[in-house]
C-alpha cells in the first residue's frame, strides 16, 4: 500500500508538470490549430532564466520565476508574430533586433547593453520598414499551411535548444531554489517539498487560467475564436490579440513548467526539452483542444508513468510474470506512449477532445 501511495504522490507531481506543459500546447492549438513544438524551447529558456536569476544574479528564486514567465511569454509572442503570422515589417524588425542583439553580445557587451541595443535596432528597423512599406504598398500578413507551421516550430525548437546550450553549456547545473532536498515523511511515504511546490504551482496556474478562460473578456474571445473563427471576427474580436494572448499564456506556463521541472534534487541541462515529448501522450490522451483534458490527461499519464516505474522495479506477488527486467530501463516512458496509442485506437480525438467534422 505504501508503494502505491508513494507512486501516486510522485505521479501527481509528474502529472502536474505534464498538465502545465500540455496546457501550453492546448491553448495554442485551440486558438490557431498549430502544435507548437517550440514550447520545448520556451520551457528550456524559462528553466535557464530561473537558474540564472537565482544563482548568478544573486536574485530571489521567485523573482526568477516571474522574470522567466515574462521573458518566455514575450519570446512566444515574438515567435508567433515573426514566424506564424508574418507581417513583413514585424518580421524585419524582430530579425534585425535578434541579429543586433547577437552581434552586440558576440562583441563583448554586457547582457543589458546587448538587450537594449537589440530592442533599439529592432524598433528602428520596424519603423523604417513601415515607412518604406507606406510608400511601396503593404504586403499584408501571409499565413503558412498547417504542416509548414508545425515544421517551422520544430526548426525553432532546434535553434533555441542549441543557442541555450551555447550560452549555458551542456553541463548539469543546480538551480538555487529554497527547497533543496528537504522533505516530510508521512507514515512511510516521502513527500519531497519540491514536488509539493510543483503541485501547488501547477494548481495555482491552472486555477488562474480557468478563471481567466471562463470569465474574462479575453478568455471568452479565445473560446469564441476557437468555436467559430469567422463569427468571432464578425463580432469585433481581434484575432491578432487573441493569438498573441494564447501564445503569451503558453510561454508563461512553459516557463513555470521549466522552473518546476528543475527544482529540488533535479538538475538542469539542455536536454530538459525532452520532457515536452513525454508530455505528448498526455496531450493526446486529453484531446488536443480541451484545457480540462490537459489536466486530466497530464495527471493520468503522470500517474501511469510512476505506477509502471514502481511496479516494474518491484513486481508484486500476484503478478504472473516474476521478473520484468527484460522490459529495459526507462520502460515507463515508453509505456505512456503505448497507452496513448491504445486510447487513440478507441477514441481518435482523445478522451475529451472535440471530434472534427470533415467536409469536402
Amino acid at each position, binding site marked *: 500500500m505504501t508503494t502505491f501511495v508513494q507512486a501516486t504522490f510522485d505521479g501527481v507531481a509528474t502529472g502536474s508538470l505534464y498538465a502545465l506543459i500540455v496546457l501550453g500546447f492546448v491553448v495554442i492549438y485551440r486558438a490557431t490549430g498549430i*502544435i507548437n513544438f517550440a514550447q520545448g524551447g520556451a520551457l528550456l529558456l524559462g528553466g535557464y532564466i530561473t537558474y540564472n536569476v537565482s544563482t548568478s544574479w544573486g536574485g530571489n528564486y521567485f523573482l526568477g520565476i516571474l522574470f522567466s514567465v515574462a521573458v518566455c511569454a514575450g519570446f512566444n509572442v515574438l515567435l508567433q508574430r515573426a514566424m506564424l503570422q508574418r507581417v513583413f515589417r514585424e518580421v524585419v524588425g524582430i530579425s534585425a533586433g535578434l541579429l543586433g542583439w547577437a552581434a552586440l553580445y558576440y562583441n563583448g557587451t554586457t547582457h543589458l547593453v546587448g538587450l537594449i541595443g537589440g530592442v533599439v535596432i529592432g524598433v528602428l528597423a520596424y519603423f523604417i520598414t513601415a515607412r518604406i512599406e507606406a510608400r511601396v504598398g503593404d504586403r499584408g500578413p501571409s499565413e503558412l499551411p498547417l504542416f509548414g507551421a508545425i*515544421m*517551422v516550430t*520544430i*526548426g525553432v525548437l532546434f535553434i533555441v535548444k542549441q543557442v541555450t546550450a551555447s550560452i549555458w553549456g551542456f553541463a548539469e547545473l543546480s538551480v538555487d531554489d529554497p527547497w533543496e532536498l528537504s522533505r516530510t515523511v508521512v507514515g512511510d511515504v516521502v513527500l519531497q517539498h519540491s514536488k509539493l511546490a510543483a503541485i501547488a504551482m501547477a494548481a495555482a496556474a491552472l486555477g488562474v487560467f480557468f478563471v481567466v478562460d471562463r470569465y474574462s473578456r479575453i478568455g471568452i474571445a479565445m473560446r469564441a475564436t476557437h468555436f467559430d473563427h469567422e463569427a468571432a471576427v464578425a463580432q469585433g474580436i481581434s484575432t491578432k490579440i487573441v493569438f498573441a494572448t494564447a501564445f503569451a499564456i503558453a510561454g508563461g506556463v512553459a516557463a513555470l513548467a521549466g522552473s518546476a521541472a528543475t527544482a529540488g534534487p533535479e538538475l538542469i541541462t539542455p536536454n530538459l526539452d525532452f520532457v515536452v*515529448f513525454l508530455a505528448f501522450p498526455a496531450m493526446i490522451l486529453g484531446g488536443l483542444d480541451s484545457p480540462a483534458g490537459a489536466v486530466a490527461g497530464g495527471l493520468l499519464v503522470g500517474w501511469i508513468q510512476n505506477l509502471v516505474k514502481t511496479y516494474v522495479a518491484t513486481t508484486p506477488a500476484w503478478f504472473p510474470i516474476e521478473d520484468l527486467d527484460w*522490459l529495459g530501463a526507462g520502460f515507463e516512458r515508453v509505456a505512456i506512449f503505448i497507452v496513448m496509442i491504445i486510447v*487513440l485506437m478507441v477514441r*481518435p480525438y482523445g478522451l475529451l477532445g472535440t471530434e472534427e467534422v470533415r467536409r469536402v
Partner: protein
Amino acid sequence: MSAAFTSPKRFAWARRASAAPGNKAQKMHVHYRDDLRLFPNRLRRAALAAMVLAWAAIPVLWDVAPFTLLSGNGISLNTLAYAGVFSIAAIGLNLLTGYTGQVSLGHSVFLAVGAYSTAYAGSVWGWPMWLWILFAPALGWLVGAAVGPFALRLRGNYLVIVTLGLVFIGEHIFRNWKSVTGGNAGTSAAGVEVKLGFIDFENLSLFGKSFGKDESYFWLIWLLVALVAWLTKNVVRTRPGRALQAVRDQDVAAEIIGIDVGITGYKTQAFAWSSAIAALAGALYAPLQLFITPGDFTLLVSIQFIAMIILGGMGTIYGSIIGALVITALPRLIDGISADYGLPGVAAKSTDSGLVSVASLNVIIYGFLIALFLLVEHRGLAGIWVRIRNYFSTWPFSY
C-alpha cells in the same frame, strides 16, 4: 469555364506542336498521355542521361580539378555514398509525405529495421548479399504494413504525435533487445558480405583497374538510388500515384470517388512501401557505417529526413535527392571549412572557445533551413528550379 477554353479546335496548334518530333520548345499538355510521359521531350531525356553519366564518372574523376575543391573541404566519396543512402530513404518519405500527405516522424525507425536486420542476417546468419538486400525491405514492408493501419487511422496532428511515439518505442526496443541489436553499445556490421556473385564491392576491379571500397560503394548505392527513383517515379505517375495524390489533396473526396483508403487501401500501402524503401536504405547504411548504435536512429534523424524533403521539394523525386545531398553534405562542409579557415563565433574543436560548437551550428542550420524554405519557398529547391525552367521555356511571356 466557357466552351472556348476546352474545345478541341482551340488547342489544335498546341497538339500539333506536341506531336511534332524533335521540337525542343516546352509543349503544352493537351492530351492525357502527355501527363503520363516519363520525359516530356527528348531534350530532357538527353539531359538526364548526361547527368547520370557524369555522376557515374565522379569516383574516377575525384582527384581532378573541380572536385578537389570538395574533397579539400571535408566532403569525400564516402559523404556522397551516405547522401545516396539518405536519398533512398528521402524518396521513401516523399512517397508517404509528399505524395500521400501523411506526415511521419517515424522514418528513422524503418531505417533502423533495415540496418539491424542486415547487420544480424549478414554477420550472424552469414547471408549472401542478394538475400539480405531483399530481406531488409521485405521486413520493413511487413513492419510498415503492421504499424500503418494503426497510425493512419489518425490524421494531421494526431498522426505526427503517434509517429513520434513510434520513434521512442523503436529506440527503446533497439536499446533493450540486446541479443539482436547489441543494446546501447550497438552492433557491428563488419561481417556483412557486400558481394554479388563475382562483383566484390569491397574491392572492385573494372576494365583492368581496381577500385577501393569508397568508389565501389558509391556506384552500388547510387545505382540503387537510380533504381528506386525510377520505380517510385513510375508509381507516382500512374494510377496508384494519382490515387495517392488524390488522398493527399482531399481524403474524403478521394474516398467518395472510389479510392480505397481502408485498412488495406492506398494509405497503408504507401506507408508499407515507404517503410520498405527506408529499410532498403538501412540495409545499405549498415555496411557503410560498419558499426550501428541506437544513437544513429533518433528523432533528429527523422527530422533530418523531413528537412531533406522540405528543402528539396515535397512531392518530387529529384527534390528528395537534392535535399539529401544538401543536408548530408552541409555539415561536413561546415566541419571542413571551420577546421581549415575558422568561422566567426564557431568553435571547431570542443576545446576552442566560441559562441557555438560546430555540431550545434549544424543543428541550428537544419532548423533555419526548414523554417526558411517553408516561409519563403515551400516547394523547395525543386520549386525554384521549376520556376526558373518555366521562365525560360515560356519566355518572353511570364506564364
